[in-house]
């Protein structure tokens, strides 16, 4: 109805709609005719065809003037409706519709008051309906990943059905994958329609129009080979004033302080509006209101950090506890008004160092910082074959295992630091021995090497190591990398190409490096233990966003676990080979509870938060950057209209003239 009332106010419509019944009424109230008796109406009836009828409708039928006047009134009404064909002018044969269903598309700032996604779907529906017969279209939805909802088809009802199935998500937006899918499928040789058993060629490699329905809040598109595609950006949402939205873009729990064990909780509130916003926030631990801050002023287009402190007693929880921050003010985008984090009970990490020359490590690990956070065990090479070690290594008891000049047959279920050896298998390579090997450079930006000054370090013998793909070189010598951090499934292996003490074939030991004598060695060890033993997992670890894949490592190696989502849906998972569990069903933001199915005891909680500054910024972008080209938005809200009303008006005038002529010539009534 909005469409109707846009052209005229409601009372005008009431007046206009009253016109046809009025004309009708006037025709029945019109002057009576003089009755004249004639010998026979036979000839008159013949002269006036279809005249000698009495039924109501036929009586109307002969009232040509009435019909013309009614028609004229209706055409005027129709003109006032401002009829036109809106939507895109679908000229072409092939179309690709990319519809953004990321979190920000749930904002309700469209003129119709519906969500941006619904508005986009409405626009696409109109576009599909205005497709010429024979033209085919493809439908792709995208958030942080793309999903081809419907490959090329000319079946409009199928396209519309698939369009209806697109649901809003709480994920971030990334156009890259969708563009890749579109370009890949833009020129298909064959059908990829699952419902068709036949492998038929549906479309030749022809130009296609790529319609992108989004609010533009997508990650940067690095590369886009346009090829045969002609992209068009249809921005969805309100333009002009940026929508008022304050969102939580960060929420984390800091390290407990050394003195009293108090915990700092940090949050970052972002205001994407052009005016300053004032909000109230409430902070809960578990379900208990812990703190609240009223009237937090967030400057326009800026962010503001707020912090809460949990005293040592409040922070000393016995089991993983949810902490929640909520913005109490409602706005058009509610998804970013709440954030979750998990406060885990403090726990010392388990570190094992297996070496035949432990004094240097004992010395380096005797600092208070390490002792406070980690239980460090020292064992000789023989411990590798002991049952206790094997069980613990497989069960994931250790958080970090350090091997010095030796290597177990199978790698443990934890992060490792390996001196002068390589993990079994051929994923790691090392060169022949270089001597001497001056350190050329090191990656000081990496947490492990933070504040580690290794200038002037002497290393007599060393080997270059080469890790698997994705490995990171931390220390480089003149010939190559001598310390590298590489991934192994969900763990990290830190492989160092030299040892502190070398043992020759005769069992004689000799010093290989003077590093233990330097101040940087204990710092290096502390960094390595802190980073590799996962102490940072104290505060729920890295931010998990909806749609992310989560690796769950329960404290005890369960046979299976239950994951209960915020919506109460329980998923039962089976472990992978390394006793960890992969959980992908993180559709919703909130806290996911991992529990043991046998006794139902909650083992850990995982917080999933949108917390994406890009999504919280609801400003509808005027242009969309696609690699090297910049797409200006096509005004979706005022779509290309084919206005019909002028033609109807001309028609009405012609009708009026015809009516006038008929009335004057008095053909018949």
């Amino acid at each position, binding site marked *: 109805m909005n469409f109707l009332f846009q052209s005229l106010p409601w009372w005008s419509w009431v007046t206009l709609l009253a016109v046809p019944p009025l004309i009708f009424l006037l025709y029945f109230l019109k*002057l*009576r*005719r*003089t*009755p*004249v*008796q*004639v*010998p*026979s*109406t*036979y*000839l*008159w*009836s*013949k*002269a*006036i065809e279809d*005249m*000698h009828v*009495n039924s109501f409708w036929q009586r109307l039928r002969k009232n040509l003037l009435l019909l013309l006047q009614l028609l004229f009134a209706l055409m005027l009404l129709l003109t006032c409706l401002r009829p036109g064909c809106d939507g895109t002018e679908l000229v072409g044969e092939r179309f690709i519709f990319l519809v953004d269903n990321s979190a920000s598309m749930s904002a309700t700032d469209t003129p119709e008051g519906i969500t941006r996604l619904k508005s986009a779907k409405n626009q696409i529906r109109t576009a599909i309906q205005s497709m010429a017969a024979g033209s085919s279209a493809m439908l792709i939805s995208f958030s942080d990943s793309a999903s081809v909802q419907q490959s090329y088809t000319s079946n409009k009802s199928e396209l519309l059905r698939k369009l209806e199935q697109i649901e809003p998500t709480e994920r971030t937006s990334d156009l890259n994958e969708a563009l890749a899918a579109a370009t890949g499928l833009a020129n298909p040789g064959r059908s990829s329609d699952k419902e068709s058993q036949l492998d038929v060629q549906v479309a030749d490699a022809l130009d296609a129009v790529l319609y992108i329905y989004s609010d533009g809040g997508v990650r940067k598109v690095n590369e886009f080979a346009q090829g045969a595609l002609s992209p068009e950006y249809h921005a969805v949402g309100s333009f002009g004033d940026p929508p008022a939205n304050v969102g939580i873009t960060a929420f984390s729990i800091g390290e407990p302080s050394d003195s009293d064990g108090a915990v700092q909780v940090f949050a970052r509130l972002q205001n994407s509006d052009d005016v300053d916003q004032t909000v109230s926030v409430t902070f809960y631990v578990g379900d208990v209101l812990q703190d609240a801050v009223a009237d937090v002023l967030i400057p326009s287009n800026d962010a503001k950090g707020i912090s809460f402190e949990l005293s040592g007693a409040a922070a000393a929880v016995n089991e993983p506890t949810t902490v929640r921050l909520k913005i109490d003010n409602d706005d058009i985008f509610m998804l970013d008004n709440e954030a979750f984090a998990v406060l885990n009970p403090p726990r010392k990490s388990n570190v094992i160092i297996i070496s035949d020359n432990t004094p240097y490590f004992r010395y380096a690990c005797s600092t208070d910082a390490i002792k406070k956070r980690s239980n460090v065990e020292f064992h000789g090479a023989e411990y590798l074959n002991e049952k206790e070690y094997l069980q613990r290594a497989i069960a994931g008891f250790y958080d970090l295992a350090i091997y010095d000049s030796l290597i177990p047959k199978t790698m443990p279920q934890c992060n490792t630091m390996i001196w002068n050896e390589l993990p079994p298998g051929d994923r790691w390579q090392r060169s022949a021995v270089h001597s001497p090997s001056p350190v050329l450079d090191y990656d000081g930006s990496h947490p492990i090497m933070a504040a580690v000054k290794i200038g002037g370090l002497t290393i007599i013998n060393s080997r270059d190591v080469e890790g698997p793909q994705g490995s990171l070189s931390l220390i480089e010598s003149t010939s190559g990398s001598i310390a590298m951090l590489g991934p192994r499934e969900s763990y990290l292996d830190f492989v160092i190409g030299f040892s502190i003490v070398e043992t020759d074939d005769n069992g004689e030991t000799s010093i290989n490096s003077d590093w233990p004598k330097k101040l940087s060695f204990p710092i290096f060890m502390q960094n390595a233990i802190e980073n590799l033993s996962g102490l940072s997992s104290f505060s729920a670890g890295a931010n998990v966003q909806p749609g992310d894949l989560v690796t769950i490592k329960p404290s005890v190696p369960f046979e299976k676990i239950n994951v209960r989502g915020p919506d109460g849906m329980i998923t039962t998972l089976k472990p992978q080979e390394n006793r960890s569990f992969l959980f992908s069903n993180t559709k919703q933001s909130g806290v996911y509870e991992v529990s043991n199915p046998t006794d139902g005891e909650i083992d850990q909680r995982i917080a999933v938060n949108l917390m994406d500054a890009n999504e919280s910024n609801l400003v509808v972008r005027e242009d969309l950057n696609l690699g090297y080209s910049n797409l200006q938005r096509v005004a979706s809200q005022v779509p290309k209209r084919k206005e019909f009303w002028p033609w109807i008006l001309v028609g009405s005038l012609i009708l009026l003239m015809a009516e006038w002529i008929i009335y004057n*010539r*008095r*053909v*018949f*009534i």
Partner: protein
Amino acid sequence: MKTQGESGLHTQTVSPLISPALMAKLEQMELVSRKIFRGRMKGERRSRRKGQSVEFADFRNYVAGDDLRFVDWNMYARLDKLFLKLFLEEEDLHFYTLVDVSESMQFGTPTKLHYAKQLAASLGYIGLCRSDRVKIEPLDGNKQNTAPVFRGRKSLWQMMNYLEDLPAGSDVSLTEAVRSFCLRNSGRGILLLITDLMDKSGYQDALKYLVAQQMDVYLIHVLSQEEIDPDITGDLKLVDCEDADVAEISVSQRLIDRYRATLANFIEEARDFSSKRGIVYTMTSTERSVDRLVSRYLRQRGLVR
């Protein structure tokens, strides 16, 4: 003459059906039958039958038993053979006049019915003068044979009175009335049908019945001047006087033209239909005098001479 204004019905004060001047003219005429019919009584009309009269017809051979009075003795004297002289028989003619007395015939100035009566009287008078058998019947669907037969000049006033008293305003359809007549009258002769043919169920069936009678049929189609050239204006509701059917019109030149075309078409159809079936069709307006119609048009068409 007076006019009933609003209803449009036109009635007329009684005027003589035949003027003396016309009567004198009519006495000189006679009805002509294109077919020679057998009469019932001896009349003034030659018959195909051979019989007793003064007009010679033919000779034929004498056969035993023939009346010797008709033997041509002069021939016998000349040829020595006996021949019989044959004479034409003179018979009377059946002259039927059917007058449409439906409601629609009461329109016009003078009314079409009056005009029809005048015509029936005129032609009937010719028949009476020639000793023909004159029968005038109203088309009122009467199943009884009530119409009197007039014969001889002395029956003139009787016929006049009968015509004057002819009932009007029958609502029987033309076809029904003609059918009723045909069932009751099987004789041959001349049949004159005076009607306006304004019957919504059609006149064709009625004419077909008449054709089947093997009579010498004359159709006088009477239309009033108001019908031929309607003089009406404005927004009107035309009411049919017979069945009260209503036709709402707004008179325009185009409508009048269309009406005229329809009327012309209607007349043409009737003429066509009649001539194809051997019926002599004559369309006349009430404006045309009976004298002129009889002495000129009907003479041209061979009904009288």
